């Protein structure tokens, strides 16, 4: 019995990789970060634009916490995204993209703050609440207090500051913070404890 003369061929119009490389970016929020990262690695820079739009607010706010003014925060946030783009190949996917991006952000901020020292300004124009809504004395006191807290946070050691900012303002769990700053959960809790204790010392005269 001879072999049948069949020719079998299997074709797939789009492989998983091709699908990842060409996600429907118009879908916006339906495309997850990992898919966008894969697409970006595949040469689609517009995928990175979506990632920027998705995370720019958190990145900017984190930068602002470190430098306490809009101009520096804006420059730092841009730097964070450029570094993230350059280092996309190092993102292994073991953690969420946002966690990885936070790590890049914290490193950039600590490097900048460490090299320059915090540029402490009073309050941005945007900090000043609308006087039509509240009494001016109350506003002034609140604004002054906010500036004092910000100045006190700026005087904290780098790791304590990072732990405080990520925990209080970004409400990240201690485990995620540990991953971001590259230490243990216990160390993060200890840093957070010391940050609050030092904040208390720094703010004591006015408290």
């Amino acid at each position, binding site marked *: 019995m001879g072999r049948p003369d069949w020719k079998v061929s299997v074709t797939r119009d789009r492989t998983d990789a091709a699908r990842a490389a060409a996600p429907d970016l118009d879908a916006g929020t339906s495309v997850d970060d990992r898919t966008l990262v894969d697409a*970006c*690695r595949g*040469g689609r*820079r517009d995928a*990175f*634009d979506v990632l*920027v*739009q998705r995370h*720019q*607010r958190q990145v*900017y*706010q984190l930068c*602002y*916490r470190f430098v306490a003014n*809009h101009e520096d925060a*804006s420059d730092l*946030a*841009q730097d964070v*995204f*450029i570094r993230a*783009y*350059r*280092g*996309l*190949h*190092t993102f292994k996917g073991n953690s969420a993209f946002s966690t990885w991006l936070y790590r890049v952000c914290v490193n950039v901020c600590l490097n900048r703050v460490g090299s320059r020292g915090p540029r402490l300004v009073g309050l*941005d124009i*945007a*900090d000043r609440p609308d006087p039509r809504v509240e009494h001016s004395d109350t506003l002034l006191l*609140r604004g002054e*207090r*906010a500036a004092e*807290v*910000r100045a006190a*946070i700026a005087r904290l050691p780098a790791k304590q500051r990072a732990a*405080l900012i990520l925990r*209080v*303002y970004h409400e990240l769990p*201690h485990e995620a913070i540990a991953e971001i700053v590259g230490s243990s959960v*216990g160390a993060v*809790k*200890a840093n*957070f*404890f*010391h940050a*609050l*204790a030092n*904040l*208390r010392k720094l*703010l004591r005269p006015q408290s």
Partner: protein
Amino acid sequence: MKHLNRAELVDFIEASPLLPAGRARHVSTCNQCRAEADALRSMRALATTDEVPEPSPLFWDHFSARVADAVREEEPGRDRGAAAAMRWRRSPFATWAAAATMAVLVMMTVVWRTTLHAPAPAMGPAMSGAAAGTATFAPDAAAAGDESDVEADEAWAVVRAAAQDLRWEEAHAAGLSAHPGAAEGLALELTADERSELARLLDKELKHTGV
């Protein structure tokens, strides 16, 4: 009972389920721990009141456009060091250096192979020193002792072609240089037969180039 440690105090003020119930109950009976927890809690609350001012709504579009422009100028997925390495690799200097390195490597390989596998020249009186381990070079005797022609050696022709345009000044500038004494060291590792074969090849080549 032992006071709460730092991590436990943090867990307590955050009402973490990780804190054992017994440790949490301790705070209600310990003034020191309670005072510390209250102080930490109030600091945490105070810090929370400071909010980041929201930039203008137009800022976000402007910002993402700025980042997009900056990213367009970047090589995808490469850090600055890798990009610099790529630029270096593409430079004409690097290409030349790579070619010169290849030529030298090929030359060394072929010489090594030739000396190992070519038939040993007949031992004439002029080469008697070689048998004693002290290679005494006698060009006439070496040339007469072997009838194989270097010109016919294809591998040697490849080496000669590869090294034809090689200038040692440029090779040195490209970082290709032999350590002092390297040639002598290499010669000492050769057997007597290998040394005599190397001598024969060099002699042939010197005659060919008219030096």
